[in-house]
């Protein structure tokens, strides 16, 4: 099950909080990153698969941006996006494989 | 188990709540005096504030009874080895010692050591069961006053979910 392994990885990465943002970010960068993260988070909530941590990271990103810390804000927003995407991937995968777990 | 109307008690409650004494209508002066006395007595009978402030066993025993305790195997302390939740730890104390007049339960690792103290008049058995909060793993000490002397026994109770959240 390759998708499964991928999701495991995504979950692990998201828990570890790894991101790829290493540049000096501007407000525009933050806005773009936040917009993408928010859209992903909304999608996850709509699918009823959201993670509590996603919203936490979004809020933290907003807070960082409010004090001008755009590097940090972008990093947090990217992380939120990664969390939201992992949760969506989780839901899609589970929709297929949940019957395997049923007691029979 | 029917609750009976208890007018004087309601009055006493009002006094304790700080309601104006004059507000207690329909009672004679003698009744009033009696009520106030009862109210004061309840305070004077009192709650040992000093003892409840102490942070170790010796301090509690000194404040409560003015003496120290010796170990006794005639006290049965029933407490769980592992508390299901520190907020509600059922603890019972029983003793076969003669002329028991008081029982106290101490938890040294709580912010304050004394949790509960009980007065046992003549005719009442040397037994009490209650539920206590424990902040973390601690020794629990049961102290029994028998014939004017203090005796104690203890037991370790493991707490993984602290109970100061109660």
């Amino acid at each position, binding site marked *: 099950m390759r998708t499964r392994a991928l999701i495991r990885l995504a*979950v692990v990465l*998201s*828990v570890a909080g790894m991101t790829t943002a290493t540049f000096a970010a501007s407000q525009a960068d933050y806005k773009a990153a936040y917009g993408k993260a928010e859209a992903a988070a909304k999608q*996850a*909530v709509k699918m*009823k*698969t*959201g*993670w*509590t*941590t996603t*919203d936490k990271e979004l809020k933290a990103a907003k807070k960082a941006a409010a004090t001008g810390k755009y590097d940090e804000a972008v990093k947090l927003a990217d992380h939120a996006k990664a*969390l939201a995407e*992992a*949760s969506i991937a*989780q*839901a899609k995968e*589970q*929709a*297929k*494989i*949940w*019957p*395997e*777990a*049923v*007691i*029979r | 188990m029917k609750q009976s109307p208890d007018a004087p008690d309601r009055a006493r409650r009002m006094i304790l709540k700080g309601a104006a004494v004059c507000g207690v209508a329909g009672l004679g002066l003698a009744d009033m005096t009696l009520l106030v006395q009862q109210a004061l007595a309840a305070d004077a009978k009192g709650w040992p504030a000093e003892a409840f402030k102490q942070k170790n066993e010796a301090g509690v025993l000194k404040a409560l009874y003015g003496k120290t305790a010796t170990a006794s195997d005639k006290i049965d302390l029933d407490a*769980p*080895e*592992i*508390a*299901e*939740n520190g*907020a*509600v*730890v*059922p603890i*019972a104390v029983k003793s076969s010692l003669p002329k028991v007049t008081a029982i106290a339960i101490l938890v040294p690792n709580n912010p304050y050591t004394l949790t509960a103290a009980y007065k046992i008049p003549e005719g009442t058995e040397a037994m009490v*069961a209650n*539920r206590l909060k424990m902040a973390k793993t601690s020794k629990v000490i049961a102290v029994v006053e028998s014939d004017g002397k203090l005796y104690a026994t203890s037991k370790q109770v*493991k707490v*993984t*979910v602290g109970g100061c*959240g*109660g």
Partner: protein
Amino acid sequence: MLRKVFIALAIIVGTAQPLLAGNMKVDPKADFKAFREYFTKKFPNLQLNDFVNGPYSMDVGLRKQWISIEQFPPYEFAVDKGKEMMSKPFKNGKTLADCFSNKGVGIRQNYPYFDKKTGEVVTLELAVNQCLKKNGEKTLNYKKDDMAAVTAYMAFTSRGKNMDIKIPDDPRALAAYNKGEEYFYTRRGQFNFSCASCHVQLAGKHLRTEVLAPALGILNAMPIYRSNWGGMGTISRRFTSCNTQVRADALKPQDELYRDVEYYLSYMGNGLPIVGPGSRP
């Protein structure tokens, strides 16, 4: 001969295929049998009627503390309050009791049920608020306090009766049941846990001092007084807190999915006694 092989093959494929494709036939009776067998085999020394006592059925130390607390359980206040609320007249003179058969006494085992008119699952908590709404009264917070008091009273008056959930032969009822089952087995949250991860696979295991309750009959003890909460909680509260514990967003209380999973899980508890309100660590 050849035909026989074909049939055998068809059966094998037929049973194996749903596992892979996920579009299997919904068969509550078979699920029920397998579910109960799983737990009775996993805990061979447990009396069947003891499963509803959750952690207290499988840990001697916890059981002793529970028995001590049951001598005078803190949920008594909730039961008394619930009783009072049931018969307290609304502004229109009617009462909560009027909304239920037998004035709400001894009927908890019939909830949730499938409402053929609306095509939806109606839980006891939903029914209470629907009654209030219908009578122009303020609805209750689904998670605790008054809602827990009313359901505690209704559970208390139903003690000893067996859970009796019906799944009518109606595709909508079966669909609701199936959605509930899916919800139960679907992993969610950042911890990637399903309801079943804890209450099927890990049932009976210790998580710190907590013992994970078996899913069999888990709702028969609801609502519960939890020392951890320092108060009463309803099924709605249990579901939302389970979700957040695995870092999944909780749904709104009485969301369709929660009602469906309650439907599924209650059906699995059929034949086991109502013991609510319960106490839990």
